[in-house]
């Protein structure tokens, strides 16, 4: 298993007040994402556990794009990966952010 | 130890226990009363027919109302793997046998499992694991799945699994590991008289299911008890 952590500063906090949410399932080609509103409003941290080593640069790019797009300030995001493809990761991250905004 | 040796040790005055198609039923004089015996011998797989023979014997004992202890002796294969067994509802028949043993226990019959050979999977759950207390004789070999099969399913090399098995009782087959998880309460001493040891087990039966506590103490199931307790605590918080 490989552990990756990315920390970002956001321009604004993620709207909404949902304290936490989870989306997805750990399965082959899929992943689960746990989002918790526990950080300062301009901080976002994404921690990943993945069984597939060597994709750090891809994860970094996926997370950076997500942060730029969703501005998920205040969120600690924890990912249990089952070997998901980057597009699935992006989709789940956006799904998670939407759950938190509700 | 063979079944015959076990029975001879338990019932010096004789008994009516018989083995047919690997299915063990009968009783004998024990202490001041009767000890019912049911079980599986000879590494026999347990199918729908056998499960109902055994459950019949258990329910007969319960109906008799003597509250006599029931000894479940086990040297079985796993459940019988066949199209016919599944077609006829093997899950119901094995569960029925387990329920009969659990009913007996609730009805005042001390139930004691005694594994002296092999047992695995559904057969193990429906028999020995459905008793109040499970004892084993040295040399018993309970398992969920043998390591070569585990290697096949998990796609891990066998030698790596064998290495892991030494330090990780949670997945490896064998008596020691089943003791460590708390599934087997006690390993008997073959050097001492069997009847006395069984009598002591019956005399010291405690209410409740303490297998998770044993698993925690013995290190084979480090977190199960705590998790169960945490669920109960959170459920109680209203």
């Amino acid at each position, binding site marked *: 298993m490989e552990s990756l952590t990315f920390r970002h500063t956001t321009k604004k906090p993620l709207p909404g007040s949902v304290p936490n949410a989870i989306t997805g399932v750990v399965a082959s080609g899929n992943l689960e994402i746990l989002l918790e509103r526990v950080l300062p409003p301009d901080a976002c941290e994404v921690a990943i556990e993945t069984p*597939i080593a060597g*994709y750090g*640069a*891809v994860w970094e*790019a*996926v997370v950076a794009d997500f942060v730029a797009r969703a501005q998920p300030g205040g969120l600690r995001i924890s990912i249990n990966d089952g*070997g998901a*493809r*980057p*597009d*699935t990761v992006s*989709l789940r991250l*956006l*799904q998670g952010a*939407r759950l938190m905004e509700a | 130890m063979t079944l015959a040796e076990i029975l001879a040790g338990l019932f010096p005055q004789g008994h009516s226990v018989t083995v047919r198609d690997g299915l063990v039923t009968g009783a004998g004089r024990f202490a001041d009363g009767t000890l019912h015996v049911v079980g599986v011998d000879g590494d026999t797989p347990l199918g729908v027919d056998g499960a109902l023979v055994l459950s019949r014997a258990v329910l007969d004992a319960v109906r008799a109302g003597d509250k006599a202890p029931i000894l479940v002796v086990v040297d079985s294969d796993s459940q019988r793997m066949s199209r016919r067994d599944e077609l006829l509802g093997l899950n119901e028949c094995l569960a029925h046998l387990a329920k009969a043993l659990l009913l007996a226990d609730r009805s005042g019959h001390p139930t004691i499992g005694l594994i002296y050979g092999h047992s695995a999977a559904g057969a193990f759950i429906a028999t020995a694991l459905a008793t109040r207390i499970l004892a084993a004789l040295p040399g018993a070999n309970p398992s969920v799945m043998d390591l070569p099969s585990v290697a096949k399913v998990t796609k891990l090399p066998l030698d790596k699994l064998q290495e892991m098995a030494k330090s990780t009782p949670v997945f490896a087959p064998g008596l020691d590991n089943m003791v460590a998880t708390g599934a087997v309460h006690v390993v008997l001493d073959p050097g001492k008289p069997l009847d006395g040891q069984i009598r002591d087990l019956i005399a010291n039966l405690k209410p409740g299911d303490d297998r998770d506590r044993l698993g925690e103490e013995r290190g084979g199931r480090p977190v199960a008890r705590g998790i169960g307790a945490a669920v109960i605590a959170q459920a109680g918080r209203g």
Partner: protein
Amino acid sequence: MTEWRAERQARDARIQAGRAHADGKVVPAGSVIDLLEAVLRPGDRVCLEGDNQKQADCLARGLAACDPGKIHDLHMVQSGIVLPEHLDVFETGIAKRLDYSYSGPQGARIAKMLYGGQIQLGAVHTYLELFARYFVDLTPHVALIAGVSADRDGNLYTGPNTEDTPTVVEATAFKNGVVIAQVNQIVDTVPRVDIPGDRIDFVVEADTPFYVEPLFTRDPAAMTETQILIAMMAIKGIYAEYGIRRLNHGIGFGTAAIELLLPTYGEKLGLKGQICTHWALNPHPTLIPAIESGWVKQVHCFGSEVGMDRYIRARPDIFFTGADGSLRSNRAFCQTAGLYACDMFIGATLQIDLMGHSSTITQSRVAGFGGAPNMGSDPHGRRHPSDAWMKAGREGQIVGDPALMRGRKLVVQLVETFGEKLVPTFVETLDALELAKKIGLELAPVMIYADDVTHIVTEEGIANLLLCRDADEREQAIRGVAGYTDVGRGRDRAKVEELRARGVIRRPEDLGIEPLDADRALLAAKSIKELVHWSGGLYEPPAKFRNW
């Protein structure tokens, strides 16, 4: 004096030798080897019917069991290398040379044998190209074909999987060749005559019914949100945009998702009757909901599909059927239809390079292409206009006299940026080039050349290559939809944004599509069982696709 009838005399001699093992035209299954050894000559060109689906498997086994001392150095000319026996004959020396089109399941072994020199390869063709050569320089001496039934005169019923049979027989029977048909059953009267008996020389009653592979069944239960998103973008950004009515679909999950979105998402967009009315397509089970919802006017098929027979019989307004009621497919005609009568081909591939060349060949597999290069190419011989064709032509025209502008076929690659096991779809260099070098192919096995591709659709967006004005734009347009692959991450971000501003690249949001709306609930059927319900119980899926 010139001998003008040598081939005819040789043919007569072969047939006479074969008659020794036949009762009239009928040969028992047990005599197949004797028959083949009597009819065949070393060095013959032989077409052993291996179609996309239907396999002359009994005859294949017979050929593989022939004595290599008697029968050797054959030149196999057949579209599909599908069965193990198709390659076994090269190991024993019975066959030496090969010209083919498609080798899906045997792709890895064929690569090995090419590398090992056991096969002398002519070329990997498209179907239509190989068929064409049957009539020019690859005419078979002997054709070994398959059908459902025949009468004792040789009148042949191919069943719904007519596929290649008429083409193979035409080339063989009318040019002094011998045609041997295996059938599941000899009957007094065939349901319909697909091949007249005077073109069939021998009929073998096979020991088991011929093998047919359900190649086109895609289980909706396995469709992902990403595939649904891509399908939504294709429908809105290409089908609706160009008004595609006449088309061909590939066989992947992406196009199957499009088929399942027509009655739901397509309906919502008000596209019914405007798109997807006329098809060159196998009878895909996933098309059933669109057919039942009245989207589809007609479908001509290359072959059939396992389990679709009853459904097709009940929908003669949609499908081409014989007087007996069953489907009549025809690969050569349908390929021609796909080439000339369709405005769009849309399908998947395994690799796309920076220019847009694509291939399904990897370093260890030579799968061949089947019909994709035909359908996925712009036919310069087309002379009839359509709105879709003309619009694409206008987009692609850079210079020249508008009065002489011609249209353009849409060739769309529908891919996810990563395939199985995180293998990237977008690459700097196709594996096909490496393979060509390794086994000494003169022509690299490219499926669709870059100059034929008009659009690439991925989950990240649509790249319209027609609008690219130079090689650099083209490369950035491709990088711009290549997602998080190395190729995608190597993009020039500023250039990509410029292309997006010009509509060369369109993201889901540019099309008014919210990626989070890509939900499986949009599928008209979410399981094979629901397809059965849509068909009113007429579709009978093969056992391996059932979960009830």
